[in-house]
């Protein structure tokens, strides 16, 4: 199955992301974002970065997760190739997809990201992403099929 597709928007760029569950959706969103930043070719799994994010909503968690990865790229040049989610807490998963009234910090994600430091000589840089935004942000679930839309400011 397709993991993600790039959405074409004047001025910005977005992703439509697919996944069989929430974890897969979040992994595919991150890999989709990395594909916008640089060509995946030649990126090695040299280093591991651990990431932990929290939010009051699943959508907020997705934005925080992607912004955390943007931070690691922009501050330290770290670009990921493979992602293992080590902990995922989502009240939605327990209450079988109901919207619920989750309070802040209820949604939590911890992950190990394997990759290396971007090297402008060896790697091909693409877009400089400033941030993941709440613009048109959505996460939908139909049975075992999860779909998210996220737009980046570039």
């Amino acid at each position, binding site marked *: 199955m397709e993991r993600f597709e*790039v959405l*074409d*928007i*004047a*001025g910005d*760029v977005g992703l439509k992301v697919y996944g069989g569950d929430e974890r897969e959706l979040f992994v595919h969103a991150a890999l989709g974002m990395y594909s916008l*930043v*640089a060509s995946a070719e030649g990126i090695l799994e040299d280093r591991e970065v651990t990431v932990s994010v929290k939010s009051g909503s699943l959508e907020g968690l997705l934005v925080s997760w992607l*912004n955390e990865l943007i*931070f690691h*790229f*922009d*501050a*330290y*040049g770290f*670009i990921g190739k493979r992602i293992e989610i080590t902990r995922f807490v989502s009240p939605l998963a327990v209450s079988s997809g109901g919207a619920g009234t989750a309070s802040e910090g209820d949604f939590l994600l911890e992950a190990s990201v394997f990759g290396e430091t*971007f*090297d*402008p000589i060896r*790697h*091909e*840089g*693409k*877009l*400089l992403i*400033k*941030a993941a*935004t*709440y*613009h048109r942000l959505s996460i939908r679930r139909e049975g075992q099929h999860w779909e998210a839309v996220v737009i980046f*400011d*570039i």
Partner: protein
Amino acid sequence: MAVENVKRIDPSRIEVPLDYKPGMKVRGVIYVDEVLEQDLEPQSIDQVANVAMLPGIVQSSLAMPDIHTGYGFAIGGVAAFDVREGIISPGGVGYDINCGVRLLKSNLTKGDVAPVIKDLVAALQTNIPSGVGSKGRIRLDAGNEKKLLIKGARWAVEQGFGHAEDLERTESGGCLDGADPSLISAKAYERGRAQQGTLGSGNHFLEIQFVDEVYDESAANALGLFEHQITVMIHTGSRGFGHQVCTDFLEVMEKAVSRYKIELPDRELACAPFGSPEAENYLAAMQAAANYAWANRQCIMHWVREVFGSIFRMSPAQLGMQLVYDVAHNIAKIEEHVVNGRKTKLIVHRKGATRAFPPGHPELPDIYKPLGQPVLIPGDMGRASFVLLGTEKAMKETFGSTCHGAGRVLSRHQAIRKAKGRAIWREMEDRGIIVRSAGRETLAEEMSEAYKDVSHVVDVVHNAGISRKVARLRPMGVVKG
């Protein structure tokens, strides 16, 4: 196709009336002629109307002819709020806080530079870091980064990047006073550490240009501009530092909206009442990011001067490489304006709009008081850029604001598709423009056809009287990120 439910006021403006959407406190006014009206995105008009619903907005929700859909607020938008009852919103400034433009002049002419243009462009690309994942030449330790955030361009001058006289030729002297480094997150510090003195990517650029047309001889003279003269334009902002400040405070504002029970038509307009702790903190952090950007453009300008000096084997002073002016086009500032006949303190948001103060304004340096504020409008890499001056009419109609650039017409992928099989750099070279870019796709995304014709945008603001044309600049050499 004319847009529905909007009314044409005059050849340069349309009105988004109060009944366009329920909840509008003021009308919207968009500066477009009949031709640019055809390009208006319905969503961007909606955004102008949404901003008109925000608490404390005064006069009208404005947009410039280079309007397009943005994050909550349209790009090209100008909105002013009464400090006593209004709000401040990070979405009204944008992610790239104090993205802006500076223009350097020289005593060189087109004929002097043409034979060495390739060397110049190559040397600029080598000496000024640009592109995705590039690192700057400056490493800031925590102490220095804090000083920079407080002092702005003055920090750069104190480090030996340029001269004190550059500061008076910079909007706000290159420094906003209220910056508070204690409000900056550890992440913003980390992102800012290695990005001072870098150009970035996307639409940011460094351009060697020549003056190809002068519209107002005496104003051009007063600015020290003449036909065939070489100028250099620098377009960049606060880099990852500013992006992180915006990201951090959008989260703060999300909470403020529910805390202060502000009703919003769109969550992207997240804001806080002016004077609240959230608003004060954002303002002070945004001012720090603005200062980061002014220092950034100051450092880059210094290296541009050095590159010219080494290619022409003369000092930058001998080459007459003097700053004309530096403007911010993504910023919120506290200013005094006349509203309903009374002087009122406002927080003016300019998101993709340039300040355009008239002659005599107290915030202008003495050298420009008789003239009005220089306004710098960058175009796309193939067409032209413009120098304008601020006017009294801008002060009356637009809180002393005008347009900021061309505005995109093609999405990035449309542009890439259109450029498929073409060598954009070769097409540009055939037209006498040498272009170098770090990223392969950047040139396709940034090609001329992807943008509105900046000349048309500038004509609208000129004809509307909210700024007046002085000179047109044509690119000869371009460095893209």
